[in-house]
């Protein structure tokens, strides 16, 4: 007993005690409360327990299905594009012969420091009916009539995917770049001597060495996309129709736009939790260390 509670472990516990307490109070306790809330339904302050009714409702709720579908669509299309783009750019920037490296790196990383709302507004003005893009296409005679990008279900999704990719590619690129710089150059040297081409080196050395980082970025990107909110709200408000509405926006609508039903909103949040957990598990299984 005395062995276990010697001075240094005690000291260690003192250090973690405060953060743990804070995490329990501000993170775990609300999670538990919202889990309880997800079994209740009602309006505003009038709530009653409904058991699993909210969860059953999820499966017959067309708006929820639409939101999930939209979010998964962003996920399936946007995340692979962004990660591949990030990887390729990182590879190009890692070239020791490249000049003005600092400039390129900053330029590509810069979108990440812009606020989510302001870049969404910027994209909105670019893709407006009298926006700069339409003006450009018109003056190049590529189109005859301005295209209402944000009013067409397909184009609106394309705009959102473009915007998110612009914003987050640099962020992932930095991770890859720093990981690449940790790869021992002698490995490449040996590969060159053995006659491996640059492409071969990229796929057989760089990518496998970056696997843990790729996995990490895939998980955080998945997580981020499932919680997508600012961009969609500011670009399209979920429209046209509900063609671009995300799950997070649906939660917001349920709580603050519609007659407030925080119980059902909590249920939808837990649906996200479950989806994130399942997807992360899947990614770990596919790309993780253990076979």
């Amino acid at each position, binding site marked *: 007993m005395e062995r276990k509670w010697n*001075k240094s472990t005690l*000291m260690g516990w*003192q250090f973690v005690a*405060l953060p743990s307490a*804070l995490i329990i109070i501000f993170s775990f306790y609300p999670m538990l409360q919202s889990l309880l809330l997800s079994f209740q339904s009602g*309006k*505003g*302050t*009038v709530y009653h327990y409904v058991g699993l009714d909210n969860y059953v*409702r999820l499966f*017959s*709720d*067309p*708006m929820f299905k*639409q939101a999930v579908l939209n979010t998964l669509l962003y996920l399936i299309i946007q995340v692979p594009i962004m990660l591949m783009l990030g990887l390729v750019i990182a590879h190009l920037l890692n070239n020791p012969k490249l000049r003005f490296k600092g400039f390129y790196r900053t330029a590509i990383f810069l979108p990440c420091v812009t606020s989510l709302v302001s870049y969404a507004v910027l994209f*909105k003005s670019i893709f*407006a*009916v*009298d926006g700069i893009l339409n003006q450009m296409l018109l003056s190049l005679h590529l189109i005859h009539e301005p295209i*209402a990008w*944000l*009013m067409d*279900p397909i184009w609106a999704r394309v705009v959102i995917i473009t915007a998110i990719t612009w914003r987050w590619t640099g962020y992932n690129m930095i991770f890859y770049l720093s990981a690449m710089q940790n790869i021992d150059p002698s490995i490449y040297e040996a590969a060159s001597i053995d006659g491996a081409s640059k492409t071969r080196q990229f796929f057989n050395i760089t990518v496998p060495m970056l696997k843990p980082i790729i996995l990490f970025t895939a998980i955080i990107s998945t997580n981020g996309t499932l919680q997508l909110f600012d961009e969609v709200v500011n670009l*399209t*408000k979920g*429209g*046209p*129709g*509900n*063609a671009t509405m995300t799950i997070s926006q649906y939660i917001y*609508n349920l*709580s*603050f*736009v*519609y*007659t*407030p039903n*925080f119980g059902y909103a909590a249920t939808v949040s837990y649906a996200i939790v479950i989806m994130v957990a399942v997807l992360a598990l899947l990614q770990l299984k596919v790309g993780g260390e253990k076979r």
Partner: protein
Amino acid sequence: MAKKKWLSVFVLVTMAASLLAGCGSSGSESKTAEGKEAGNSSKKKVVAWAWDPSFNGAALKIAKELYQKEHPDFDLEVVDMAKADLEQKLNTNLASGVKEGLPDILLVNDPNIQKYVTAYPNTFADFTDKVDFTKFSPYKVEALKIDNKIYGVPFDIGVTGMFYRSDYLEQAGYTAKDLENITWDQYIEIGKKVKEKTGKYMTTINPNDEALTSILLQSAGSWYITPDNKGNFVNNPAMTETLRVYKAIADSGIAKPVTGWSEFVGSFNAGDVATVVSGVWQVSSIMDAKDQSGKWRVAPIPRLNVSKAVNASNEGGSSWFVFNDSANKDLAMDFLAKTIGGSSEFYERFLKENGGVGSYIPAFSSEAYGQKSDFFGGQSIYRDFTKWSTEVPGITLGMYTQEAKDALKNELPNILQGADLTKSLANIQTLFEQQVH
């Protein structure tokens, strides 16, 4: 040594804890402390939440000045927030049951009235006997009535008109007479002529915005939902006609597509469109284009082709609520009742200083409401608007307006692409019913 370490940890913990505690309650505590202090020093302070310092916030300041003449010890603090922030803050506060930090007076957007009163029972004060509601436009009072109690003081209205560019319409061969009491089908015909003669669009269209459908529905005394909160999409001639007209406008090519508010305002400020069908509060945005002075006029809005439809409707508007649990409840109610709820002088000043139009009928005959506007070619626009405001059909906005609008928005692209209207309306009805459960 060990003692010292323990001490330092203890100090650290207490410091962090006090810091956090400070964060948590400082906002509300300082406010109540302020209020109490103010109360002791014979000034009675009422706090109000509003969302536009140059409009509803300014209105409160006028009301404060008027009330202070009789009650010199009265004081009012207006807290300005963005509208969405205000609504979010209110919902979280009320749902969590934390009453401190809430104001005494609250500005409520009319479509939210039923929602708040039903979702948060016993939260808002009953004004039924405090204000003479017969002096207000009936449709405004109707919106505030729930179970025969009236829960607030009617404030600004959004009585609609058809703003038009007289120069464009003249070029197309139309005079002011031709625009009085027309139907929407006539409007579309005029629009085609305008497009042909001037190359300008007649109006704008934004499938993401429900403003136009709302105006059309109310002009026929109908709404997205019935007074008992059921979907009102099937077997509703007004709804069918509204969507027919909406599609006709979209198909006719007379409407310029816009994706947001700034584009919408930009379209008429840049002179791209010949008409704007909107609430009276649009006057200030229209007058922003100084170079267009004298070219604008206002006519009544076109009419739907159904029985009971009129050439008048409403877009937007808000009302003032008081919290039941407020420490200054009686004072806050008296303040609102004596100013916004019953002072012609308030409405005259509000119109002159901020261009705001209320629903207080006695003020309509005042000089301020009769003034001629040079920007509108010498037309007494406010006299016209207030005249139309008494014709607006009264409707119950119900609890689920936003849900119903979103259900409609979901199907609108299909309708515009030519899907069978009866079938689409049935779809919307089903979607709505699944939503409100």
